[in-house]
């Protein structure tokens, strides 16, 4: 019966993860941008067995609000056992337009890192906790099709690596979940990439990490092997690939 905070709770993957938590009878605090959608998700989780579901609206881009949001969630839940940071955007304009790139970096990297910092501080003060952050396999190699997005997630990965080391002595686990392409609204305008997984499958994997943390995990696990190969490709070959 864990107490779990979810940032970006209306994203398809976070919603599926929350369902797995609800089925276990966890207490959930959902934080997102859209109040009506948060309510739709919260009502669903309540029927599915969540002990209690709270919601809060947050503008993720406003970093000033992060500390208060974490404190609020902590107070309302009576403590945070695990937290999930799942918000993010995929904007292919960022490959060519600096303004779009700045916005993408701000949402995917700066705001996620800021929340991770705040949650980490709160968990350290409380004596422990698990923090799962959604990243992407796109972070592991710059590809011509979405290097803006990949760069934002790569920055996040490095940041989390450091945070993980810093918080480990305090009993706080920081988990980088490296997701393969998943069938979610994020991919709605693009043809389905190869090996695309269902949000349900990935969400269940994320929920497992919330309850049984690891340092880094590929979801689905197959991507661990795929990325091993992708990372090993020599640059002269990789730059010729249309991917």
């Amino acid at each position: 019966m864990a107490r779990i905070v979810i940032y970006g709770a209306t994203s398809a993957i976070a919603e599926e993860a929350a369902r797995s938590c609800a089925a276990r009878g966890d207490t959930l605090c959902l934080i997102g941008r859209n109040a009506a959608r948060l309510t739709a998700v919260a009502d669903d989780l309540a029927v599915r067995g969540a002990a209690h579901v709270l919601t809060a609206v947050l503008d993720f881009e406003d970093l000033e609000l992060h500390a208060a949001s974490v404190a609020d969630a902590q107070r309302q839940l009576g403590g945070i056992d695990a937290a999930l940071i799942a918000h993010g955007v995929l904007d292919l304009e960022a490959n060519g337009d600096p303004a779009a790139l700045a916005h993408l970096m701000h949402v995917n990297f700066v705001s996620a890192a800021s929340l991770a910092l705040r949650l980490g501080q709160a968990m350290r003060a409380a004596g422990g906790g698990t923090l799962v952050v959604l990243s992407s396999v796109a972070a592991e190699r710059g590809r011509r099709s979405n290097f803006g997005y990949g760069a934002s997630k790569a920055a996040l990965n490095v940041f989390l690596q450091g945070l993980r080391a810093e918080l480990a002595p305090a009993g706080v686990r920081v988990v980088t979940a490296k997701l393969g392409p998943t069938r979610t609204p994020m991919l709605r305008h693009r043809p389905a990439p190869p090996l695309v997984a269902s949000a349900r499958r990935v969400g269940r994997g994320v929920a497992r990490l919330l309850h049984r943390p690891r340092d880094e995990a590929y979801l689905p696990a197959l991507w661990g092997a795929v990325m091993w190969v992708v990372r090993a490709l020599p640059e002269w070959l990789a730059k010729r690939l249309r991917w």
Partner: protein
Amino acid sequence: MSIDRWRSFGGYPRVVDQRVVPVWWRDDPLPKVAAPVTLLPRGRGLSYGDVCLNEGGTLLWTGPLDRFIAFDPEAGVVRCEAGVTIAQLATALLPRGWFLPVSPGTALVSLGGAVANDVHGKNQHRRGCFGRYVRALELARSDGSRSECTPTRNAELFRATIGGMGLTGLITAVELQLLAVCGPTLELESQRLTGLADLFAHGAETQRHEYAVAWIDASAPLRHLGRGVLYRAEHSREPAALAPRAGEFGRARARVPCLLPSGLARRSTLSLLNRAYGWRAGRSRPPRLVSMRSFLFPLDSIGDWNRVYGRRGVLQYQCVVPLADAQLASRELLLRIGRSGTTSFLTVAKLFGTLDSPGLMSFPRAGMTWSFDFPLCAEALRLCDELDRTVAAAGGRLYPAKDARMSGAMFRAGFPEWTQFAAYIDPLFSSSFWRRVTRGEESTR
């Protein structure tokens, strides 16, 4: 994958030019389209024919609309988004003592689809159609309106939407009255049927049971015409039956990995399989406890089982003939199949009761319903045309959710309410089925 995903369950007819737009949230506006492009809601795509296809149009896929909205554990009333499946509902609520009053032969259908086809189950004679348990619907139409439809509010639209094949707008939410049950088990008894006369002789007494359905060996020789097995079941009332866990509905234990060669499903192999099944199941057995899953949704345990029919697909034929001529008509149907060069893999007969549905275009009516499935081939198409003659002569009709080939005349004769129904169709909604059966008529689209 994507081709497979947007075909219909039977795999025939095949549609190539079709766009798919997922509906992620129930307050999402409908996509803007301009005539002649039309919209059609699409749930799990388990209709056999073309009621779930829209050639040249757009499918509004409700898969992501799978959230519960509210559940009252005292009254057994649940409200869900339209993409929630019967399996998801049963998995969540059966452990709390509530089950669907009516469930079709697969739990994988969405509630929106169950409403749109006004599905029936093995207890049609006792409970009627699915639509009887719908307390309210939320309907989004292309004019931007969203209306709550109940038997008293927007009552006409409510009646048209139940069994309305998705043509009256996008159902975004469904409110259902559930049935209180003691546990996840049924008491099942089976009874050997020696022939058609036997099937009809058992009709009246069978109606006392909650569930009743007959499996018939369509490839039986003439002297055994109509032999099969009659299954009757009741919800178990023993509190002990609560003990086993309800488990997850709709989960496949095995999966057909790919389309099998179409040539496998031919008369000789199907006859053999029917014979084998009849030999194994075809004896009378006293009541025994079975799980709801295994009796109500037997084929859900094999994922993508329709792939056994291969690329060509399967033609399902379900008709109902009024009771007056039912025995004669049934005999004629089986004889026609026996004389043909093909046979039905899975043949089911069931006596429908007189309970009315609120749906304007609901399929069930008092009489005997037969469902056959034929591996698709020219011979099967010809045979179905022949069966149509028998059904039409007996004053019967065919089930649109299973149909892929009936003539417009056959449809319009079976559903004279269609002209009345057409007035409620959303001007920007259409389906391949609807265009096929109304082609050449006035007020078509």
